[in-house]
C-alpha cells in the first residue's frame, strides 16, 4: 500500500542530506565538544558551523543562538526565563488562546506562581486583534508571547506589528516560531522579537534538537543550570549529532525555500479546491491568505475526526485532527473552539499538512478517497440523518 504523509506539522521525515550529515557524528565524531583533545575538536567545529547555519535561517549572530532539545524546551526557557528575569518589574503576561500547549501550559504554570496571564481571543479567521493587544498592556506587563504560525490552522500572526507594539511599550516579546521556521522567511533583524523558538523535527531534522534566538542584551534566567555550555546559558553536553542535523536542515531550508513554497502552495490549493468540490458540508478553517503554504485544516460536518483519520490511515494516508499532541478525541481543539467553531464541528476537523516530498498525485489520491469515506461515516452518523 502507498504511504502518503500529510502530517508534516506533527513531525517531518529526516531528509537524506540531513541523515548523511549526521552519520559521521554518530560513528566517528562522537567526542565531547568541551574536550581539548583530538576527540573534541571535530565536534566543537561542527557545533559552531551548525550554529552559523541556523543563524543564517533567522539572520542572527552566533552569540544570539542557544541550542535546545525541543520547541517545548525553547518555549519554557523563553517564557519562564523572561518572566523570572523581569519579575521585579511586573507580573503580567499576554498570550493568545490558540498557542501550542508548550506555551499555554507554561503560562498556566506561571499563573500558579503569581503571574497574571491574559489570553487574547481570536476571530473566526484565527487572528488576534492588535487593538485588543494594545489595550491589554498594563504597567505590570513584562512579556508578550504570540506564536508565529499556528500549528493546527497554519494561520500566520502579525509578528512585526506585535514586535513594534512590544518595543514601544517596553515589553519583552517571545514568539514560538516552531511551525514557521523553514516554511516562511524569518528575519529577526526586521522583527522586534527578543526571543524566538524553533524545533528541528518540524523542518526535516531529527527529534531532540531545537534552538532559541535570544537578542543580544536580552537576559533570560536559565531553565537548565549546569556546565559552561552555550555560554552558561544552557547546561548539559551538547547534542552534537542533533545540532549538526539542525544546521544542515536550516541550510537546506534557506536554499530551497522559494521552490518549496511554490510547490506546497500549489498542492494545498488543489487539495482545498478538490475536497471543496467533491464533499458537501465542509468548512476550511483559518485566514484565507495569512496562512502557511502547507497547512489545510478542514471541518467535515456530522462526522468525527478520529474516525476519518482511521479510515484515511487504512488507505495509507497520514493526517491528524486537532493537534498531534492530543492523540485521542477527548477534547475538541482549543484552537478551533477559540475561533468560534462549535464543539461538534471542531471534532470533525482534519489537518492536512504537506511537505517536501508530497506530490500532486498524492493529493489527487486523497481527493479521490475522501468523499466515499466521509459519505460512509456520515451514513452512520445520527447527526446527519435529518440533513440528507
Amino acid at each position: 500500500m502507498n504511504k502518503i504523509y500529510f502530517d508534516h506539522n506533527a513531525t517531518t521525515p529526516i531528509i537524506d542530506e540531513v541523515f548523511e550529515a549526521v552519520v559521521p557524528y554518530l560513528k566517528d565524531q562522537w567526542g565531547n565538544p568541551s574536550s581539548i583533545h583530538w576527540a573534541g575538536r571535530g565536534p566543537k567545529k561542527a557545533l559552531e558551523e551548525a550554529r552559523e547555519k541556523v543563524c543564517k535561517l533567522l539572520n542572527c549572530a552566533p552569540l544570539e543562538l542557544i541550542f535546545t532539545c525541543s520547541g517545548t524546551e525553547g518555549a519554557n526557557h523563553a517564557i519562564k526565563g523572561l518572566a523570572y528575569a523581569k519579575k521585579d518589574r511586573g507580573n503580567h503576561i499576554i498570550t493568545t488562546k490558540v498557542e501550542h500547549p508548550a506555551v499555554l501550559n507554561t503560562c498556566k504554570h506561571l499563573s500558579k506562581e503569581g503571574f497574571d496571564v491574559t489570553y487574547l481571543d481570536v476571530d473566526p479567521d484565527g487572528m488576534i486583534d492588535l487593538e485588543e493587544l494594545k489595550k491589554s498592556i498594563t504597567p505590570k506587563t513584562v512579556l508578550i508571547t504570540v506564536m508565529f504560525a499556528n500549528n493546527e490552522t497554519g494561520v500566520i500572526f502579525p509578528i512585526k506589528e506585535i514586535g513594534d507594539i512590544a518595543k514601544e511599550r517596553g515589553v519583552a516579546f517571545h514568539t514560538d516560531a516552531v511551525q514557521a521556521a523553514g516554511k516562511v522567511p524569518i528575519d529577526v533583524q526586521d522583527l522586534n522579537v527578543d526571543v524566538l523558538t524553533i524545533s528541528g523535527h518540524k523542518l526535516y531534522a531529527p527529534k531532540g534538537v531545537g534552538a532559541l534566538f535570544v537578542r543580544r542584551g536580552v537576559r533570560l534566567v536559565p531553565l537548565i543550570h549546569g556546565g559552561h555550555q552555550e555560554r552558561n546559558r544552557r547546561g548539559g553536553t551538547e547534542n552534537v549529532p542533533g545540532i549538526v542535523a539542525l544546521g544542515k536542515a536550516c541550510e537546506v531550508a534557506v536554499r530551497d525555500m522559494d521552490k518549496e513554497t511554490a510547490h506546497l502552495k500549489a498542492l494545498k490549493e488543489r487539495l482545498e479546491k478538490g475536497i471543496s468540490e467533491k464533499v458537501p458540508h465542509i468548512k476550511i478553517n483559518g485566514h484565507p491568505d495569512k496562512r502557511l503554504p502547507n497547512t489545510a485544516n478542514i471541518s467535515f460536518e456530522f462526522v468525527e475526526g478520529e474516525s476519518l483519520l482511521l479510515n484515511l490511515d487504512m488507505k495509507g494516508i497520514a493526517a491528524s485532527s486537532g493537534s498531534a499532541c492530543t492523540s485521542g478525541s477527548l477534547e475538541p481543539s482549543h484552537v478551533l473552539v477559540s475561533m468560534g467553531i462549535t464543539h461538534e464541528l471542531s471534532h470533525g476537523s482534519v489537518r492536512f499538512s504537506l511537505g517536501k516530498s508530497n506530490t500532486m498525485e498524492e493529493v489527487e489520491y486523497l481527493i479521490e478517497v475522501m468523499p466515499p469515506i466521509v459519505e460512509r461515516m456520515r451514513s452512520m452518523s445520527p447527526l446527519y440523518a435529518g440533513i440528507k
Partner: protein
Amino acid sequence: MYSEKVMDHFSNPRNVGEIEDASGTGTVGNPACGDIMKLTIKIENDKITDVKFKTFGCGAAIATSSMVTELVKGKELSEADKISNQTVAEALDGLPPVKMHCSNLAADALHAAIEDYKKKQGK
C-alpha cells in the same frame, strides 16, 4: 493504539442503521468528547430480536456501538441488562486508557433504549 477487534468492528461495523418501528430508542453522548450514540431496539417476548446503531464518534465509539449490537442481538432483556461498558470493552480485547470513559458509552445507550421500551410498555 486499538486492538484488532476494535479495528474490525470499526471498519466493518455490524448493525448500522435505525429500526423504523423501534420498541425502544436510546441516545447518549457527550458533546465535549465528540461522541453521540443512538441505539434502536426491537423487542418481542422480552427478547431483543433486532438492534441497530448510529454513532457520531471516534473509532472506539463506533466499535463499541457495533460490538454492543452483536452482544445483545437475540438476548433476553434480563441478560442484556447485565451488559456493562466494561463487558463491551472486554469483548473488544480492551480499549486504550484515554478511551475507557468517554467513548465507551454503548452499553449506556442500550440501557437507555431498554428503559425507553419499559416506559412505553408502562403506558
